[in-house]
C-alpha cells in the first residue's frame, strides 16, 4: 500500500438498498494517489452499483464518500428507508450530501461504462471534444458569437492530442459506434481522460476483448496511470489483467466485501477461491 501518498478516495460504510434488495452492503475501501485498485466479484455482486454510488448516479442509502480530501457524498436512511433499512451502521452518519455526477466529474472523477455509452450520432473526435465542454470558460453568448475562438481551438487541439495518444487517429472522423468493440472501449477511456481526472473509474474495460486485445489494454492502463498521473479504480473479470496491474484488490460477494489485499494475498485467500475464483477462473 502506498500509504505515504495522500488518499484520493475513501468509501466508508456504503450501503445501497433498492427496495428490499441490498446491492451493496456496508462497503468500505480506500485508494491512494497513483494506485491501481481493482474491485472483483461474481456477477451481480454489486460492483457496478458501488461505482454508481461513488460517481453520484445513485445516492447511497447510508454511508460516506470522501474524494481528494473532501467529503463529497453522505447519506443516512431517511424517509421510507428509515423503517425498511436492512443494513448496518444506521445512525452513524447524519449529513445529507447528494451531488449530481457532473459535480463529481468537475472535482476530478471520470468513468467508463460496462455497457458502452458513447454518443452515437457523433464521431470519435466529437466524442472526445464534448468531454472538454466542462472545462470551458466561455459563456453562452461568447460561445455562440465566436468570442471563444482561442479556447475552441485549444480544446480541439487537446482532443486531437488525446486521440493520438490512445491510438485512434486513423478513425478520428468515423462515427463512434461504427468502431470495433475494443476501440470503442479505448475511446470511452479517452473521453473520460478529456475531463482531466484525478481518479479514473473503469467498469470492465476488457469486456468483449480477445486475449490479444486484453494484453494490449493491460499495458495501456499502466501507461495511462504514468502519463496522465491518475489513480485508477477498475472492475474486471479478466483475472490475468487484474492480477497483473492491480496494486490492491477488493473482493465483493452478494454486496459485501469478503476480502482485500494484494494480488498475491487475494489469490491465496480461501474465501475468495470459494466464492469466486474457483467458479469462474477463466471467465
Amino acid at each position, binding site marked *: 500500500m502506498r500509504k505515504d501518498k495522500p488518499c484520493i478516495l475513501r468509501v466508508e460504510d456504503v450501503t445501497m438498498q433498492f427496495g428490499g434488495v441490498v446491492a451493496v452492503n456496508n462497503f468500505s475501501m480506500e485508494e491512494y494517489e497513483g494506485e491501481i485498485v481493482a474491485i472483483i466479484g461474481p456477477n451481480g455482486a454489486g460492483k457496478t452499483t458501488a461505482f454508481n454510488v461513488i*460517481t453520484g448516479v445513485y445516492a447511497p442509502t447510508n454511508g460516506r464518500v470522501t474524494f481528494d480530501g473532501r467529503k463529497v457524498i453522505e447519506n443516512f436512511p431517511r424517509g421510507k428507508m428509515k423503517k425498511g433499512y436492512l443494513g448496518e451502521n444506521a445512525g452513524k452518519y447524519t449529513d445529507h450530501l447528494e451531488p*449530481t455526477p457532473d459535480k463529481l*466529474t468537475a472535482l476530478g472523477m471520470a468513468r467508463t461504462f460496462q455497457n458502452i455509452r458513447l454518443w452515437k*450520432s457523433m464521431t470519435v473526435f466529437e466524442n472526445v471534444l464534448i468531454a472538454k*465542454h466542462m472545462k470551458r470558460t466561455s459563456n453562452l453568448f461568447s*460561445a*455562440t458569437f465566436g468570442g471563444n475562438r482561442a479556447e475552441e481551438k485549444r480544446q480541439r487541439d487537446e482532443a486531437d492530442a488525446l486521440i493520438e495518444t490512445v491510438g485512434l487517429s486513423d478513425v478520428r472522423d468515423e462515427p463512434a459506434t461504427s468502431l470495433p468493440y475494443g476501440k470503442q472501449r479505448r475511446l470511452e477511456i479517452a473521453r473520460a481522460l478529456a475531463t482531466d481526472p484525478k481518479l479514473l473509474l473503469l467498469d470492465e474495460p476488457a469486456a468483449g476483448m480477445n486475449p490479444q486485445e486484453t494484453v494490449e489494454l493491460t499495458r495501456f492502463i499502466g501507461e495511462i496511470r504514468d502519463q496522465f498521473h491518475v489513480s485508477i479504480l477498475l472492475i474486471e473479470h479478466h483475472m490475468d489483467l487484474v492480477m497483473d496491474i492491480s496494486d490492491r484488490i477488493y473482493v465483493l460477494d452478494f454486496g459485501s466485501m469478503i476480502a482485500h489485499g494484494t494480488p498475491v494475498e487475494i489469490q491465496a485467500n480461501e474465501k475468495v477461491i470459494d466464492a469466486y475464483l474457483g467458479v469462474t477462473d477463466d471467465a
Partner: protein
Amino acid sequence: MKQNEKKVSWISFLLVLAFLGLVFWLDQIIKPTNKMYMLMTVLQKGSVYALAAVSMNLLNGYTGLFSLGHAGFMLIGAYTYAIFTIPSSARDTVYQYFDAAIRISFPELLSNSMGSAGTVLGVAIAVIFAGLAAAFFGYLIGLPVLRLKSDYLAIATLGFAEIIRAVFQWQKLGPITNGSNLLKNFMRTSLFKLKVGDTKLVFSTFVPVLIATLSIIVIVKLVNSTYGRAFKAIRDDEVAAEAMGINLAKHKMISFTVSSFFAGVSGAMMAMVLSIAQASNFKAAMTYEILLMVVLGGIGSTSGSVIGSFLFVAASEWWLRGLDSGKFLGIEAPGIFRNGFRLVVFSVIIMIVVLFFRKGIMGEREISDLFREKKKAKGAAR
C-alpha cells in the same frame, strides 16, 4: 481541413446575402395586386414558420426534449409585440371594452425623436421584447417541467400552452390583453415602407425574412458551438453526458429558454404578417403543424426545418389552393374540388412523406454538407 470549413461558411454567407437581395428586389416589383403576390405571402408566412420550426428543432431535435408548448410561447410573443406597437391614436378603438393599461408604443415613442429610423428601431425592440417575454415564461415553466421524462414533458408543456391561451382570453386581463377580442392596428408588414428621396421602398416581405434569417443564423451558431455539442450529447445519452461533467438541469434550461425566445420572436412575426393577434389562433394544432414541418424536414437538421416549413406553407397556401376552388392542374371538377378537399389531399401527402421518408427530407444533414461532400469526393479523386 480548416481551409475547407472557411470556404463552406463563405459560400453559405454569400448565398444568404444573395437570397436577402432577391427578396428585397421582389418586394419592390411584386405588388399586392400582382398575380404572383402569392409568392410573397408564402415567403412571409414561410419565414414565420421556418423560425418556429427551427426553434422547436433546437429543443426536440438537438437536445432531445420533446416539448409541445410552442404555440403558447408564440402567443406570448405575438401579444407582447402587438401591445407594444399599437399607436396611441388607435389604442382606444382596439381596446373597445377596456381601459388600456399599457400605453407605450416603442415605434411611436422613438419616431417622435428619431423619425423613421426610430420606427425601425422601435419595431426591433418590440420584437426582442416579445422574445424576452416568451423566454421569461419559458424559464418559469422550465423549472418544474424539465425534470420530467419525455412523455410527461410533452403533456406538461402542452397543458401549459392551453393554460396560457385561456389566461390571455380572460376578461379580467382585458386592460392588457383585450380579453377575448383581437389586437389590431399595430405595426404590421403592410406598413413597412420607407420614403427615400422620391422613391418609396417596400419592406413588407423583407423584414420578416430578415428577422427569420438573423434568428436562424444565431441558432445555427449556437448549435455548432460547444453548448450545441453538449445539447447533442444530452440527446444521445443523458447518463454519459452527466458523467462527462455536463450539468443536465442547466443545459436543458438553456435550450428550453433559447427555444422559447425564438418561438416568441416567431410569434411576433406571425402578428406582423397576419396584422392581428388573437389568442384563439394559437391552438395545439399550431404546435402539431410546426412539429410536422420539423419531422418533414428531418429531425435534427436546421436546413430541413426551413425547407419543411416553406414546402408546407407553399403547398397549403398556394399550390394546392385549386383543390378548394374547383380547378386544379387545369382539371375542372367543382363537385370534388371544393372547400375542404385541399386539406384531405394535403394530409394524405404528408402521410406518404412521413411513411416513406422516415428521416424526413434532409435526415440529419445540412445544406452546407452538400458543398462539403463534393469537396471530399474531389479530394479523394485527386
